């Protein structure tokens, strides 16, 4: 049973295909990078995975069950691209709120909250409310709330956005630790260098369809290519070909 399985998924908004005939399988315990340009359909796919919107056509399942199933949601940790959360809450109150929604008992919530705030480096925020937090700090809160109920599958939407270089390294290590614990990580990103460093497999999305789906080692196997070049190559539009030629010429 795959943590994520998409089969010929389609979704249109006002007759524009946001996702078109997309098929994917994410295997348990792998780090899967979901790459694509702006408007390629990454966020729409993530919304369908979370059961926020329904696909027009096709089959979508998480751990073999429907995405709308409440029991499935217990196994998912989601981190949005940029969510500003409730500005009047403190970091520990927000995490406790999500913990209560997940049905965790008070003692576990307290222990987990303390652990997570240390893990994401927010242990000293104390009485500060979220409205005073920087974008990077809010990203860390987002990571903490996704990790809270120890889910089996992590769906992360642009997780590296807004993080400083140190936080990026820290977060990359965190994702690798999750993999070691047998968790599955599915993340969308523009940060191709990050994807190259941590992903087992990637899918490249263009206009709602997957134009590449396979292991990172396979596409970067010759030692000369990097994910950025391959990304531009598979997208194959004129602009990217020009960039590719410039890269080949060493400019």
């Amino acid at each position, binding site marked *: 049973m795959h943590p994520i399985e998409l089969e010929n998924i389609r979704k249109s908004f006002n007759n524009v295909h946001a996702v078109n005939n997309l098929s994917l399988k994410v295997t348990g315990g792998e780090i899967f990078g979901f790459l694509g340009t702006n408007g390629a359909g990454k966020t729409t796919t993530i919304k369908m995975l*979370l059961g926020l919107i329904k696909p027009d056509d096709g089959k979508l399942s998480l751990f073999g069950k429907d995405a709308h199933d409440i029991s499935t949601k217990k196994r998912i940790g989601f981190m949005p691209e940029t969510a500003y959360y409730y500005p*009047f809450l403190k970091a520990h109150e927000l995490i406790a709120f999500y913990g209560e929604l997940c*049905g965790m008992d008070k003692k576990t919530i307290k222990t987990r909250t303390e652990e997570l705030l240390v893990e994401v480096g927010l242990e000293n925020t104390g009485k500060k409310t979220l409205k005073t937090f920087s974008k990077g700090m809010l990203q860390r809160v987002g990571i903490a709330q996704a990790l809270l109920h120890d889910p089996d599958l992590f769906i992360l939407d642009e997780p590296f956005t807004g993080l400083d270089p140190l936080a990026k390294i820290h977060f990359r290590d965190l994702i690798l630790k999750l993999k070691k614990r047998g968790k599955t990580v599915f993340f969308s990103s523009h940060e191709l260098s990050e994807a190259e460093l941590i992903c087992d497999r990637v899918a490249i999305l263009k206009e709602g369809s997957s134009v590449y789906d396979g292991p990172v080692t396979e596409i970067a196997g010759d030692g000369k290519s990097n994910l950025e070049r391959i990304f531009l190559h598979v997208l194959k539009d004129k602009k990217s070909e020009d960039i590719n030629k410039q890269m080949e010429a060493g400019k």
Partner: protein
Amino acid sequence: MIRQQLCAFIKLSFLDLYRRKDLFVLLVLSCVLLTPLALLRPFGQMGGNRYMNEIAMLMIWVFSFIIALGASSRLFPPEFESRTIYPLLSKPVSRGVVLLGKYLGALSTSISALAIFYFLYAMLNGFRGGEWFSPLLLQAFVLHCGFTAIVVALGLLGSLLVTTSANITLTSTIVVVMFLLGRRLPHYIAADETPVRWIIAAAHAIGPHVEFFDLRQRLVHSWEMISWPVCALALIYAASYSVTCLWLAWLALRRKQL
């Protein structure tokens, strides 16, 4: 688990209301206005006392309406604007529970504010030589809670259908018109012979009968209480109206493109 989730939403609403300054501004404003009223004894006349009590009750109705509408109309728009709805709905919680939790949260915070206002009124009345507490005051409070339940449900429904400003304008207009004209409309309808009367009759039937919950005159003039079965019927009406609004809101939330 659902109970725990509902409690989480109620707690969230309390933190929201009490950490924003709106309630405190209204409370300070009430104290500033009510304290001189409590101390003043115009000509030592009983009628003067009644007049002061009437002003105090009007203030309570206006302020509690502002709090209830303010709390309910802000329940969903910030969730969509700041995209907090995504992590919220990614948790094992259904849209129905989110809706009910938010409704109960806004209702309980509005009722808590209402209780503070009624406490202030009782203090005012007590200081002016009247009764500190009476069963009629309790009945007025209970019915006022019914009115609040309807306002919160209407505000919540509006927050899912129109923009916040349009919601506040529409809900305020409906409630104020029904509040002022609700009792008189049946007389107008009976007197009118044009086809317009059918439109007015339909609007009167659909609109929230907030006038059922107004015991201000009885309270101010120390008239008799209404019978508890009539009070219970009014509360059943409030519950039914709120449930209908919540059902419509649930349909709107279910179909909402996120």
